């Protein structure tokens, strides 16, 4: 049996009377691509915020490769190899698109405090441009990130998480804001990059077709609880689950 990369047990958090997480227990193994679905306000983003240390659970444990990470700060958990992209892109808007990736790369190298060489070292610029090429952003490399359209921002946000070469990648709606036409294309790129990098991933997604097509496993959240956990083709056929997720049968 493989060792789990992520073990979440009994995770619980309330915001006042809102149940954001209630006894959530999940074990993820290396190589899995887990879709997370659920209605608005189900607690999907909260789940990612808890794993990455942005929120502290009232109860429960989170282990990344066996190491307890509850109480660690986001930067510490990230440095352990957990990457994350955001529902609302979190970029450095006044830096150029390339610089956004360069900063991610320098940080991944552990050189965030370095003054010995410039950020724009040739080797690093080349690595950044490869990432940008992969995400179709190379043509915009020299523009400030703030000038990117919504879809471009979303891609850059994901690209920065990728540039960290994490072991575990958590993506919050990676294809929202990307046009319906390009959705599958973007997912193809992502999945291929995940495979090449040997990255295990969880991704929040509203589009059931995307989940069915790409996820090896799906978690269904509602009111902070895990309603179902299994193979997408089976789980998403259950009428009760469909009702809970989409409000339609």
């Amino acid at each position, binding site marked *: 049996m493989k060792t789990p990369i992520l073990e979440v047990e009994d995770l619980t958090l309330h915001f006042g009377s809102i149940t954001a997480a209630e006894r959530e227990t999940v074990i993820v193994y290396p190589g899995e691509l887990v879709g997370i679905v659920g209605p608005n306000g189900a607690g999907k983003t909260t789940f990612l915020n808890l794993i*990455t240390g942005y929120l502290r659970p009232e109860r429960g444990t989170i282990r990344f490769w066996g190491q307890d990470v509850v109480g660690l*700060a*986001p*930067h*510490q958990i*990230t*440095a352990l190899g957990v*990457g*994350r992209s*955001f529902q609302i892109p*979190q*970029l*450095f*808007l*006044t*830096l150029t698109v390339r*610089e956004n990736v*360069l*900063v*991610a790369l*320098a*940080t*991944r190298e552990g*050189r*965030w*405090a*370095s*003054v*010995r*060489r*410039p*950020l*724009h070292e040739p080797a690093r610029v080349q690595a950044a441009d490869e990432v940008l090429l992969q995400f179709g952003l190379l043509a915009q490399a020299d523009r400030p990130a703030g000038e990117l359209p919504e879809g471009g921002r979303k891609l850059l946000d994901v690209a*920065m*998480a990728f540039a*960290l070469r994490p072991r575990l990648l958590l993506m919050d709606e990676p294809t929202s804001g990307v046009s319906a036409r390009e959705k599958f294309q973007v997912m193809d790129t992502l999945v291929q990059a995940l495979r090449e990098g040997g990255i295990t991933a969880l991704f929040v997604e509203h589009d059931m077709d995307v989940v069915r097509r790409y996820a090896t496993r799906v978690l269904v959240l509602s009111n902070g609880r895990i309603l179902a956990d299994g193979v997408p083709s089976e789980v998403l056929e259950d009428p009760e689950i469909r009702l809970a997720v989409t409000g339609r049968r």
Partner: protein
Amino acid sequence: MNLPRGALGVLLVAALVVAGLVLPRWLVFLLALALAKGVAVLSVVVLMRAGLVSFGQGLFFAGAAYAAGFAMRWWGIREALLLVPWSVGLAVGLGALAGLLVARYRDIFFAMLTLALSMVLYGVLIKAYGVTGGSDGIRIPTPTLLGLQLSGDDARLVVYYLAVAATAAAAWAVGRYAAAPAGYLAHAVRDNEVRVAYLGAPVSRIVYAAFLLSSGLAGLGGALTALNVGHVDPGLAYWTTSGELVFIAVLGGTGTVLGPLAGAVVYELIRSYAFKYAPYAWQMLVGAAMLLIILFLPGGLWSPVERVWRRAQG
């Protein structure tokens, strides 16, 4: 013309060296003061890059100036090449302490806390008459350079060249920091702290490092000012001194290393002429100059030069 930035720096330093020989004494003295102030303005700009506006750089400016004064008075040290590093070291030490408190704050809270700390120093300098000379301050005798006794105009000129060398070194260091990952991470903190943390870098330590660099620069400016003026007084720690540094930063422009230095030179020139021809209205003239800059050159005085430079580089 395709000059690397380093070549521009060398040209400017050469121009300043020549200026020391050909310009009238009073202008050389004014330039020396402007460069000292320019280095302190760089300290403001370094923090602005991280999104922080300090209204209390006087803490380090005055701290270092008094450190030089005490070293002369208590220990009889007159060697400039000892006084300057000692003063800068003390300023960085002050920054290391103050930073523990202020690096957690942002925006107006950061501005007010830095202001408050500098005013605490001002209060101490005023009250502790026996040690600091109160509002009279301390006289700074002419320093020696490499053991050489200097006097009169020679001394002035040597202190000017010391200011030129120190300013060039500071500008080089800041330029290097700004182009390196450390400087970009500070810029990134200004744009989006959450993302910086999610890249795996500790925001608080990035801010703290910028604060240390900034206190060292403000200290260097203070030490050079003390050696130039030959006198230190509590006014160096007063909030108007700190405010003036922020003022010059905006005047010169915060996007480059040369902007703040050019801003300091222009500011000192405007101030001395305005003071000479309109002794009761010089603040008004300086204020009007600022208004014009904000209206017509929002990127600061240096921004058109930078634009031409960029275009020439293709």
